[in-house]
């Protein structure tokens, strides 16, 4: 295991997401979400690597706006939780429901649900098969069934979200655990992410070695 800081997590997530093909703005969302998950001791690294591998392989679909709903734009692909999460936070004020079929690692919707809930001031209910969870404003949440740890283990699920519709028994009353400022990450996950980070770098050439950093004069005194 590797002990890393939240800043390292955010930076690696940004670069690796970009390297896997996300636009910069979505890579920024992935980076913030990774930091959010890690800060709450939720398992983020293996799931992010899986999401980026699917993204780079073209196995993740996008979304479209019908005028009343957000729908998956490609029927035979898995839903991307980063793009789906961005849709949730962007459209939350005008949506009552959002359905993301075959979402990879639905855990990744939590940071976006947190953002959306804070933005509009109402809880968001997440449901997939027998599991239910609610994310509320001001850092509150409620695990209705079965447990937060279990959510981390779900690698693909049809995910239904209801915005602002929560039964009284499901109110988010828990607060996220005290935030960690470092995180243990399996080295194999870190390497999988670094694989994508690598694609954001430009190989050196003779020209760039001479001019890129403005060197070429004696730099010692």
């Amino acid at each position, binding site marked *: 295991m590797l002990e890393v800081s939240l800043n390292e997590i955010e930076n690696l997530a940004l670069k690796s997401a970009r390297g896997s093909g996300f636009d910069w*703005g979505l890579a920024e969302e992935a980076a*913030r979400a990774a930091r959010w998950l890690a800060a709450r001791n939720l398992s983020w690294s293996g799931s992010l690597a899986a999401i980026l591998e699917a993204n780079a392989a073209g196995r993740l679909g996008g979304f479209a706006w019908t005028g009343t709903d*957000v729908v998956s734009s490609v029927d035979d692909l898995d839903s991307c939780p980063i793009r789906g999460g961005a*849709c949730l936070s962007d459209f939350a004020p005008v949506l009552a429901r959002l359905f993301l079929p075959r979402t990879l690692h639905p855990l990744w919707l939590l940071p976006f649900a947190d953002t959306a809930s*804070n933005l509009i001031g109402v809880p968001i209910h997440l449901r997939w098969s027998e599991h239910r969870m609610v994310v509320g404003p001001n850092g509150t949440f409620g695990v209705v069934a079965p447990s937060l740890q279990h959510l981390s283990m779900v690698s693909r699920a049809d995910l239904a979200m209801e915005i602002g519709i929560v039964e009284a028994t499901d109110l988010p009353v828990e607060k996220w655990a005290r935030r960690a400022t*470092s995180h243990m990450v399996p080295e194999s996950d870190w390497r999988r992410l670094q694989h994508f980070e690598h694609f954001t770098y430009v190989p050196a050439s003779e020209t760039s070695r001479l001019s*890129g950093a403005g060197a070429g004069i004696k730099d010692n005194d």
Partner: protein
Amino acid sequence: MQAAKSIDGLMRPPDQVMRLDRLGSMHQTRLSFMRELLRRLHRERWEVSRPVFDIGPRGAGVATYQASGPERAYTLVCFAHDLPPELRSDRVIAEVWDATFSLFDGVPTTIDIDRLGQNVPRQEAGRYRQTELVLARANRSARLFDNVVACLAKGCQPDTDALDSVGYLMRTTAVYGNGKFGIADRDRIAGRPELAGPFQAEMLTVWLIRAFTIDLVEHMAALAGGRIAARLDRRLCRRLGIGNATGLGMAPFLVRHPALIHNWMAARETALARVRALPSASRQQIDCFRSALRRFSLHLSRWTTADPVLAPRLATLAVDLSLIYGFTSDAAFAAQLPWDAICRWAEKTVSLEARELVVSLVLEPHPAIADPLFESMATDELASFTIDGRMSCQALLTLIDRSYAWALATDFSRREENRLFWYVSEEKLEPRLGERATEAGAELEQPLAVARDVKLLREALTACDPAASLAQLLIRHPEHRHTVRRVQLESQRPYAEIRDNLIGSGVRPIDLLRCKLSFFGATRFDPRSDKWLRVTMFQNAPHPNEMPDSYDDGWIWGPEEVPC
């Protein structure tokens, strides 16, 4: 005394302030981070001790400097190395250094020091824990270090001209904070009053490194010279700061942290506007202003550079100083709104270097106005991250047209406006600038071409239904997401954006560096190309053992006259 005028209308607009040439003319002010650090250390009576100093005759070994305040202690752990001269380089990409450092959170045990000794000398190649707050390294000045040791070993003091021409015994080549290589995230320390402000842990590190450099030369001289060895004259110690060599690695910072740069600039501009709104100047304030001006004149005479752009600007600045002396007579200060009058006069009379110096000079006599604004300079960047998807395309278009005229006026079909691209080098993992037409890798461009991207976003917006929401735009055009975020952020933070084309042929990256370094409180900017420069930090600052004495808050301006 009359009430101060409203500052409305006295805030300098971002179109005036946020230009590269203006940012590249900035000087330290009362709000600079190293000044705030020392004010606090003095006010709170921090004490610095040296629990460990185990250095051999060739300057290799370990030392610790423990700074203890009202609630907490921090310890600089120093590793000194005996480096062959041919391996010494200022470049961030070097792999060995004369000295390496870590600022430890608290008091390290011998086990901690041993662990740091396995890692800190390797810098980026080592791994660190949350107990380490800062990682840094420094090289000896080839011109000065050995010379000073040799002089002291013979019982003599070093030549003051040589000492002044360099200004430091060691220069840092990197000072890392905020989670780099496993060290503590800023979250760990952001709630502590002494480290809540920007870069306070880094500034404390550099100040303690400076103390170490003095102790190191005296110790090596004593080992070489025995009983006849001298200590460095205390007045000369004051004149030695710490050098710093900074390159492109720092340049993207200001673009990537728009909320932070807004807070820095807004604090400075608010302080300036409040001072300009004062109806009159007291005798004490006038004396303080004139003292800073005199001290800067002497400082300027020692500020040398071979840079073909800055050298003539400094020559003009010297001429401008005499104009400033001439204008700031008793009669000028007797007028209504004297500080405003000085700023207005400077804006139409003297060079950019001098205009920005006048900003620093008029802030100097006003600690009660300027200093409290330091508290507003830190930021929680998460607070500005969320995109408001409800906003209409028309509303964003209006925001762009209001704040980005400078970007929209740029014609990116012209090769010189689109000439450069920022990238990260695979070989060095550092930001670099490439030529779009002749170098490979432009498709891997970093998102620093703000002007071009805003222009592209505006084109996309004009093709949309004006009433459509940004959520609808972004679901179809995720490529604009990072730019939408910036524009929304900027609409609440007018100093967030550097209002120039950062990929045009006219860009000088050292302008970005100078802006940031002036906020640190660096002086004697000495560009070595348009991409990197050397500066001096903490020159003329009190040393740790001088802090309990009467504290000169204006130390950074230097002495009024040459002390020896």
